[in-house]
């Protein structure tokens, strides 16, 4: 089943001096449950592509279908709502809310979605335990290491069971040991919950763990490889 379908996607940035084609006629299909890494040098268009798939940026032309909904036709308000109910985000610098505990950071998205309080409570405990932070639920971000914060961020992204998760360089600020641990957790969750993971990375260790690797160069896909099971 296709979660994401991209048809002839183009993104051009224009300023007074020049035009930059960040994404150049990309066609792509992502299936449910994929664990896909998008790699490429700086300026290859990874972040721009992910931003457009995540509904954070508008394409110049082309289509992005998520569950057969063309998100390029949605207005700003509809996009916000779409992101809330369909997409999970993991950011490079964790971006947890510092005044909230781990529990509250995970649950607030489900609260915005209007889910039942008891279900939120149960799901929050479950997902934080899955990422190995069952005993740190009431800790604040400043009481946790970088790796623990990123695990909370992953739990937050997964908690509401979105259609897919976008992770933009999620391991960039982590050491190798923590990176390994985080990736194992993400793979485990991917397999357990069958949620699609789409992330951009420079990190070879991450690439090694991915089941599919898409290589971008100058806004084009130059390689799209499904690798064997790990």
């Amino acid at each position, binding site marked *: 089943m296709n979660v994401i379908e991209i048809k002839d996607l183009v993104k051009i940035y224009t300023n007074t001096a020049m035009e930059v084609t960040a994404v150049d006629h990309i066609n792509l299909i992502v299936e449910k449950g994929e664990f896909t890494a998008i790699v490429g040098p700086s300026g290859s268009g990874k972040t721009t592509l992910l*931003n457009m798939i995540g509904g954070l940026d508008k394409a110049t032309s082309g289509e992005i279908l998520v569950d057969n909904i063309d998100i390029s036709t949605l207005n700003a308000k509809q996009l916000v709502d779409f992101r809330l109910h369909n997409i999970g985000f993991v950011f490079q610098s964790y971006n947890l809310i510092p005044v909230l505990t781990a529990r509250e950071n995970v649950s607030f998205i489900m609260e915005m979605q209007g889910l039942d309080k008891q279900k939120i409570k149960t799901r929050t405990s479950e997902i934080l335990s899955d990422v190995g932070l069952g005993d740190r639920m009431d800790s604040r971000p400043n009481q946790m290491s970088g790796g623990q914060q990123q695990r909370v961020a992953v739990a937050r992204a997964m908690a509401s069971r979105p259609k897919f998760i976008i992770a933009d360089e999620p391991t960039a600020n982590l050491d190798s040991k923590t990176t390994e641990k985080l990736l194992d957790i993400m793979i485990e969750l991917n397999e357990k919950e069958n949620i699609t993971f789409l992330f951009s990375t420079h990190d070879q260790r991450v690439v090694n763990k991915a089941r599919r690797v898409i290589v971008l160069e100058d806004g084009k896909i130059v390689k799209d490889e499904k690798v064997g099971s790990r």
Partner: protein
Amino acid sequence: MIWSIAWKNVWRNRKRSLIVITAVLLGTTAGVFTSGLMNGWIKQRMQSVIYTEVGHLKLYNPEFLNNEEINNFIPQSEAVVSYLQNDKRVKAFSQRIKLMSMASTSRGNSVLMLQGIDLEKEKQVSDLYKLILPNAGTYFAGSGSYPIVISDRTAEQLRIKNYTIKAETFDSLKIAGIPEPVIEKLKVIENKRFNTENLLKKQLTKLLSLKDLKNYSAEILGAAKHYRLNSKVVFTFTGKNGELISQAFKVCGIFKTNNTMFDLMNAYVLHSDLAAVAGLSNMEFHETGMVLNDNEELKNVQSDIRKAFPGLSVLSWKELATDAAMMNDFMDLFYSIIMGFILFALAFGIINTMMMSVLERTKELGMLMAVGMNKKRVFNMIMLETIFLTLVGAVAGMIVGWIIILITGHTGINFSSVGEGMEAMGWSALVYPEIDAAFFFGVTLMVIATGILSSILPARKALKLNPVEALKIDN
């Protein structure tokens, strides 16, 4: 959830928030106390107007208001009495003879409105009988023939009051704890009579140091004050038949209200004495004053009396004491203006703090919008944060202000340094601040409104953020 995040965000930068909260606390305290002070002042004035000077309503022959002639008494007097006796809204009423007269003693004179009163009825409509000064006689108790009660200011004008430090005065000053060296200095002016307080004050300034003057002058002036009770005051007025009548009255009591003008204008004698001297019958009065059971009934009672007696002038205290009426009517607006100005000034500090807070959280706000927090929620979050920040300071300020009012409402605040000027306009120099619960409700609403308005600029700034650009920022 938004409420919880907003509340926690207030305390994100504790120091900065506490500075703003303290500013709001101080501003609110000042506003609450000022309003309490004005409220107490106005209420005291109203109390004085209604229960000492004027009453709720007064009835006159309209001609008497144009021309205070003795023959312009209230028509249908018996019918008026009967009507008022049967109206359950009227608590009590009293009828008075009023004659403009010249008062003279051997040492001074004054123009006064001589009022002939029914003693028992008058006590029910005016508490003037409670305002007889200590050691200054009585309110017609056991008095001889033709007794009169005059004010302290009138006594000064007629030279019935003077200031003399006698031998017995030194004894009372010793008992009051005045130091011996100070008493020794006063012996220079023993038995010397000063006609006014100011004359004695001038002399004391020459004799005593500034410190002794500040500490002991009130005590010395009080002890030196003497009234020549039973002094005769001759009143001259026009009688019923147009003849000039002179009658001596003996001073039996001295009163003092908070209204110097009222004190200077009025003197009281027994109705029977004045009627007999002026040639008036028992049912010939110039004024009927009354107090009601409920102030809210004022308009209705006034209107009903006017309908029943169209030939009478029926005036309320609002028409007779327009200054107090105006202050009373504008009280609420006045408090709102004070608090409004204070909150308006504070809003600039609040806006500045919130703008800094939003700027610091650009990345976080970008994240929130990226994960699906819509503009309405972002706006509400910032608005709630601003309201909480303002409300914490305001609630604390209201509590502090209320405590100050509670204390000063019990002890009073003495404005005697400007007392003379205030009393000349009828306002008490000793003020007991008070405030009612409804005021705090109004302040809370104003604070919330301030929070909402102050949140607009910072919220707009947040809403303009592009999540993609915001997430790139390194905070």
